[in-house]
């Protein structure tokens, strides 16, 4: 079974990666936000800089803020972004 999710990137992340959204097919061993970050960090230097753990990155699943251990399900909308600075 293919687990397809939609991923969005915002602010500094969107600029560094030069795009804002993509569909990702989750490998079988990727079930949580933390595991997805590790998976993305393996894509190359820019990705490792963003998702390797040095930067503070927040995540949301289906428009709700979540922690690193949150479970990702097929069809979810996942978003990664820096700590927010509104108001």
């Amino acid at each position: 079974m293919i687990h397809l999710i939609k991923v969005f990137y915002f602010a500094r992340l969107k600029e560094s990666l030069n795009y804002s959204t993509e569909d990702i097919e989750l490998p079988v061993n990727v079930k949580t936000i933390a595991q997805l970050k590790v998976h993305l960090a393996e894509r190359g230097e820019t990705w490792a800089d963003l998702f390797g753990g040095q930067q503070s990155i927040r995540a949301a699943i289906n428009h709700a803020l979540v922690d690193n251990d949150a479970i990702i399900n097929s069809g979810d909308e996942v978003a990664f972004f820096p700590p927010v600075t509104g108001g």
Partner: protein
Amino acid sequence: MGVRVQTEDFDVGAEITAMRLSSANIGAVVSFIGQVRDLNDGDNVDSMFLEHYPGMTEKALVEIIAQAKVRWSITDALIVHRIGELKPQDQIVLVLVASAHRQEAFAACECIMDHLKTDAPFWKKEQTQHGLRWVEAKASDEDARHRWKSTTKN
């Protein structure tokens, strides 16, 4: 109860009047207005751009008001937040809270604003004399939000 995310400016007086007149049970309306400053971290700010996460932003703001309503006895609340290009002295955010008595409205307004600072997906990018830069989140905003966890309602 309402939330709005918009590029246009807002009319504070009109918003307050509309809320005040919505119920004769209201005895207090508290407002917070955020304004763009011309100085941040020692640098002059010429303009800023506000990015957000459409869909999540509205949901986060609705949730922040819902939690305030559980905690305090408030009659009504409104959050208006602007996005896009803003200049120093532009209004950026409005929080209005109405209640029968002032204490609940004061506390709820501050609590809503503290949660907005850490939970609503907005990001500011500033144009300064040194170029464009993303604004960094402040630890003091996290501290301000956390203090609401330890204080009890009374």
